[in-house]
């Protein structure tokens, strides 16, 4: 077992643990912390696949930005689930079965021979030491317009979020 494999299994296990925590833990704040575990593990997995920039972005945007919004929202909402209330929707047994089935079919779909490609094309690239430049090349040349549209989208989302959150506040 190589170091790579060791790290993969370690972080995969942590990611799954965090994911289960998100779904199973009662309070949203616990869920958010649990999600943080998953996010960081996924960032580490990105690193293992040679996506340094994505790993950094994952930590900055997800763990730093999105999760912070979640924590703020949890704070504002200040809603504690009552201990005696049912945590799960009554359809949960069916949902768990369906979730398993969904994961299995998705996997079967993605692993079709049609998608089979020469393995390890990117290995050479990763060995060359980083590909942030290559990413920038694609992002800012071929996908410049969508990238700018994304920034517009974020502004709209921000304004929308503020409007939504302040909706119904009595002045």
């Amino acid at each position, binding site marked *: 077992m190589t170091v790579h494999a060791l790290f993969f299994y370690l972080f995969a296990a942590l990611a799954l643990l965090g994911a289960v925590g998100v779904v199973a833990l009662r309070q949203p704040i616990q869920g958010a912390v649990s999600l943080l575990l998953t996010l960081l593990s996924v960032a580490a997995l990105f690193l293992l696949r040679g996506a340094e920039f994505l790993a950094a972005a994952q930590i900055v945007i997800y763990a730093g930005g999105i999760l912070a919004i979640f924590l703020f929202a949890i704070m504002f909402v200040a809603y504690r689930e009552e201990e005696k209330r049912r945590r799960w*929707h009554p359809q949960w047994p*069916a949902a768990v079965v*369906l979730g398993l*089935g969904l994961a299995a*079919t998705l996997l079967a*779909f993605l692993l079709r021979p049609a998608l089979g490609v020469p393995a390890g094309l990117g290995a050479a690239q990763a060995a060359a030491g980083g590909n942030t430049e290559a990413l920038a090349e694609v992002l800012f040349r*071929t996908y410049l317009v969508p990238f700018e549209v994304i920034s517009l989208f974020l502004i709209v989302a921000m304004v929308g979020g503020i409007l939504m959150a302040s909706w119904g506040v009595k002045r």
Partner: protein
Amino acid sequence: MKEYIYLVPLFPLLGFLLIGFTWSRMPRKWVSIIGCTSVGLSTVLGFGAIIDWLLTMGSHHPFVKTLYVWLPLKTAVPLDIPFAFQLDALSALMVAFVTFVGFWIHIYSMGYMAHEEGYNRFFAYLNLFMFAMLTLVLADNFLLMFVGWEGVGLCSYLLIGFYYQEKWPADSGKKAFIVNRIGDFGFLVGIFFIATHFGTLRYEEVFAKLQADPGAYLGVAGIIALCLFVGATGKSAQLPLYVWLPDAMAGPTPVSALIHAATMVTAGVYMVARCNLFFRASPTAMAVVAVVGALTALFAASMGLAQTDIKKVLAYSTISQLGYMFLAAGVGAYAVAMFHVFTHAFFKACLFLGSGSLIHACHTNDIFEMGGLKKVMKTTHWTFLFSTLAIAGIPIWAGFFSKDAILASVFAFAQHHHGWAYLLYGLAAVTAFMTAFYMFRLYFIVFHGEYRGHGHPHESPRSMTLPLQVLGIGSLLVGLVGVPAVISHLFHVPNVIEKFLHPLTPEVEGLAETTFHLSDSMEWILIFGSILIACGGIALAWWLYKADPEWKRIKAFTAAFPRLHKTVFNKYYVDEFYDATAVGGTIKLSKASAAFDQGVIDGTVNGMRHATVGTSLLSGFFDLRVVDGAVNGLAWLNKFCGDLFRRVQTGVVQNYVFVFALGVFLSLGLYLLLK
């Protein structure tokens, strides 16, 4: 000048940005200037580009202006989608009348909306609509067309719900959006099929491949055609997705004229004409289009017979006329369908603007609160009369030529190919009779007799009457570009539009043909037949509403058949059926639905009980008088289905997500199993 074709949609976009992002800060005068100038510039540039293109390249060679590669998709088959505009015969025709009619409707809106709240918002949306519509017609590939397609849908939603403070417009906007979604789904699936089977989405490449080897695509072309047609039924309000259009009348009248009569709703016809090669590859698809078109035409016309809201009458007549266009497209007469789109844009825009002028003067939509307006609103009167004559199909007026061409093509199609198409001709002829009748019913009720409303109506301002005059004269003249063959032989005037649109429908071995020839005598018979039909409808309207000022005859008729009248008046309860089954779940709140949470079993058991009771009740109904029984049974069945379907709408997000995930699971699983 054709190089600047991209500026045609760009100007309205600039107008939208300028007006839209200053919101209500900009003074109304500037808004009017910017809003109208942007469309005016588009019109001038559009015509300039078309003339330049015709002079330098001729109508047989499309001109493509690629701005940049929009989506470079490195999929298994590289699918580079350019952001490009294409000028060919079809898009040139569309651009010409969209910009021209759009410009005059903008002018009209200045007067109509002068005293309304949200003037800036209105012009911003209207400009955005022009941008989307021009993108739709000028796009050189299916994906860009879809962008415009969705854009016009969005603007339609925004403008139907323009008076969003009131319930009806807000609900109608949602209704239009949701019903259109169903159609758009079909369109999208069609685009996916094209992408996977042709490896490109550009019209030229797709159609070149199809023309080169039609045999190889015969099977898939039919499926693509049907998917695209689902999209067209949504946007162009055909059976069964027509229900949104009558409610779209909740928007301001210029919007109804521009979007829901002249331009957007004809996008479906445009799309079918654009993709005529797909349809021609599959006789089934063509038959579906023709039958749906003919049935919609008849159905909508019959619903228009008993409406009292002036805009609703016009809405049903729009659906009916769109049905005609699809009928023509279904028998392969694509140039004729586009000709009707063209003439319809003029006379229907004129009718709607005229109705706007009437509403502006009388402050009501109810035709029974108008009357005798002939004397006080002279310009509105003659323009309305002109466009009514046009839609009724009286010779010289535009509608006559296009409608006669449609009837003749259907007849020729039946004669040469399929005998069953005589039935379609019959339906179309009955529709023509009904159209002439209900349009003149409207005309006589509104303009003749005594004024029955309140206040003192007066003629509208100049900014409103000028567009009326332009479009009124247009609805008299534009038909002359497409005179029937016999007349063109007689007077040596060419059928301009047919020649112009000829490159649209290339003759390909193995695909259905698109031109039919009738003997001269047969053509004369058909022409006089359709004149006779139109005059018959007008005469009946005259006899019932003009010659009989008290309306005793029609009152006696409705009294004799109360149920029939009620059913037609209530539009065959189709809305109620949809409300109860699909839409109602989200609009109507009901206590009965709480039952679902307790378990699906309960619902099923109840459903079974209902079904048993239902069948016995239904058979009981049929024991009564047949017509009444059928009507009642239908209404009751609708309610029953509604009760059943309503239970599915629990309002709990998790249930929806569950069903959604189940759908994904099942379709993926099915795919894996079948592969």
